[in-house]
């Protein structure tokens, strides 16, 4: 009898061992990408910044800008600039992103403040992404900063970087930050068969910016400086609230703004996730189309055993929350651009669903 029990235990041990056995995966050999990729190799070659490069002091033709509701990117902070060619103007649109002239460049620097509880402002630059308007389309490039923080280098296949910082509560945080491959850029920026911008629309840019003279509104500044054509007076867009600021809009409008900026680059009728029939643009008025009582189409285990995207009043029965809380590659939403769950965003969407009738 004892023998049988032993046999059983042995089998179980053998089984457990197999589960935990570490796979042997060789390190990839260093290789020289024979890329004849048509792009500058170093960020410094663009001469965007003066002085110590990582301080990001812009040369005079760089226009800093901010968005009302930015995309969540693993708590990385972003500093953004627009470069317009001499005499070039952006063109106003009431709902979509602006049109930009040939030669325009959008610059987005991703960095982590090392310690949010101190005031030194010390930060670690991670990557600088560029969108360059060239031959009537947008080209996406990314440059990864070196450890010395002296320059950034073209990266086409993507890269993972371990980052540590101290958050506002003095707690130490870390993330295996993911620099996208150039194809991953397209996963979000592709719409209607072409590369598209996501951020700079009138709805997002309609805010004051303390970096501007007199801390004025960005749109007004662009108009006064002759940088923006076609802007009607009065304007016809509805500004997007800052989802993190209750003073800027009610719960519904902030939740919808959050979903639009974090999800609607794919989940819109012309976006890469149109096959799911979920539309998270603020302009969608059909509750089923933005998830209420909607069954998933091809979610697989992303459903988490839940049946509807949103069950009114019940965030914990809603697939939305399940996928926002997950960090598993095949379950999490968004699929790209984050490794950790965005607690503040989850709370906002939970609150919205909880208050839904």
């Amino acid at each position, binding site marked *: *009898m004892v023998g*049988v*029990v032993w*046999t*059983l235990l042995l*089998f179980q041990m*053998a*089984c457990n061992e*197999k*589960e935990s056995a570490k*796979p*042997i*995966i*060789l*390190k*990839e050999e260093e*290789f020289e*990408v024979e*890329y*004849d*990729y048509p792009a500058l190799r170093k960020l410094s070659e663009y001469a965007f910044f003066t002085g110590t490069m990582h301080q990001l002091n812009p040369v005079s033709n760089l226009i800093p800008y901010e968005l009302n509701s930015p995309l969540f990117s693993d708590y990385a902070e972003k500093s953004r600039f627009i470069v317009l060619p001499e005499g070039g103007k952006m063109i106003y649109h009431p709902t979509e992103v602006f049109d930009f002239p040939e030669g325009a460049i959008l610059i987005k620097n991703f960095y982590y403040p090392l310690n949010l509880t101190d005031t030194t402002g010390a930060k670690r630059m991670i990557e600088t992404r560029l969108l360059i308007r060239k031959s009537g389309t947008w080209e996406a490039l990314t440059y990864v900063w070196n450890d010395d923080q002296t320059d950034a280098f073209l990266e*086409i*296949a*993507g890269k*993972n970087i371990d980052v540590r910082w101290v958050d506002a509560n003095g707690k130490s945080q870390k993330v295996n930050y*993911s620099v996208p*491959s*150039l*194809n*991953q850029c*397209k*996963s979000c920026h*592709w719409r209607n*068969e072409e590369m598209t911008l996501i951020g700079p629309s009138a709805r997002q840019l309609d805010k004051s910016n303390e970096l501007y003279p007199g801390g004025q509104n960005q749109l007004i500044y662009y108009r006064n400086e002759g940088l923006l054509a076609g802007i009607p007076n009065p304007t016809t867009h509805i500004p997007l609230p800052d989802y993190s600021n209750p003073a800027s809009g009610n719960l519904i409008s902030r939740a919808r703004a959050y979903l639009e900026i974090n999800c609607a680059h794919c989940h819109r009728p012309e976006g*890469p996730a*149109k*096959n799911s*029939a979920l539309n998270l643009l603020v302009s969608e008025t059909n509750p*089923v189309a933005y998830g*209420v*009582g*909607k069954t*998933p*189409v*091809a*979610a*697989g*285990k992303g*459903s*988490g*055993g839940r*049946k*509807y995207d949103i*069950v*009114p009043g019940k965030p914990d029965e809603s697939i939305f929350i399940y996928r926002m809380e997950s960090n*598993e*590659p*095949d379950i999490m939403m968004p*699929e*790209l651009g984050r490794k950790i769950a965005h607690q503040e965003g989850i709370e906002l969407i939970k609150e919205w669903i909880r208050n839904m009738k």
Partner: protein
Amino acid sequence: MKYNIPVFLPIVLLVMAACGSDEEREGVVWNNIEKQLQSKFITAKEGDTIRLEEGFFAFSRSLILDSKKNITIAGAGIDKTILSFKWQEEGAEGIRAANCKNITFQDFTIEDAKGDNIKVTDTDGITFSRVKAYWTGGAKETNGAYGLYPVLCTDVLVESCIAARASDAGIYVGQSDNVIIRNCLVYENVAGIESENSNNVEIYENTAKNNTGGILVFDLPGLTQYGSDIQVYKNTVTSNNHVNFAPKGNIVGIVPPGTGIMLLATRKVEIFENTITNNRTVGTALVSYELVNAMEKEEEEAAGSAANINNNYKLDSLYNPYYSDIYIHDNVYKNKHWFPTMKSDFGKLFLLKFPFRTPDILLDGFRPPHEEWNICISNQEKTRFANLDAPGSFENIDKSIKNYSCNIPTL
């Protein structure tokens, strides 16, 4: 000790079975060509062939091919070139191709992606030839949804492929036009082969074995397009009796174990010259979305959920929840099982209504209210048939196949 040896033996055997299935990759040393290969995907020029050597290769993020023309990704053969995504940390699929023209994947094995093994979206001209897509650890709910997954594509060819153990469909074609799936082997998936909201689809000379449902032809509401003009022929659809392991919330969760071919709310479908054997619940089932809706509703009421938000398909005013123009002919049905599997409500219902031998061909009985139904079954007079009369609460089940004897010109 009051237990004796015979009680323990089955437990020991169970333990052995539970951990036996991962062994096929034991001791493998995985090569790493991740960045090199992703770079090749990015820099590939029109007409290029990207070759994958024989060997074992592991990846930590999805390989993505985007906006490329005339590219072939070619390995050294099934089970010779093996791409594993078992330790994947990023991306919802193993390989993803999007916005391309004329892409061919051939001669390799891809396994254990966290989500789908290969997803191809918004692409005109996509060929999968001699590709094996599967999950090594057995059929599990935690496996990815689809093995080979072209969606929103045109001119799709899937040939001589193997797809296994997907928690949704092994080979799934969604919202696509001009599709051929032939000479493939699909096993231990929830759905072996599934065509969903697709047009001009031919599914032929495939073998579907031990899935929950062998071959499914579905049309669902609220998507970018509806499907029709589908031929399913000369397939071997056998012993599709696997337990349904789809995660809840997915439409294939409705498929009863023991289903050979299931058609849901699709028009213009021809099913012929298939050999459909030993599927315990039903050989070929024609089902309307009305039935799906009624089943879901019942389940929700049973669960005490007052939400009843499942009538959403009615919001899609263009959606037709009925099947019509269906021509079934010259199929061979055999079933050695006398009783249905009891793992579904259908199984239990059938045991009640068909105490000996379940039907080979079955209709739920929901008819389109305003148009012709056109259900024709010919050249298989000996087939066991039933119109379930689901709208009449199964009161007037019609078992006479002769009432459906007619011909429709083949598609």
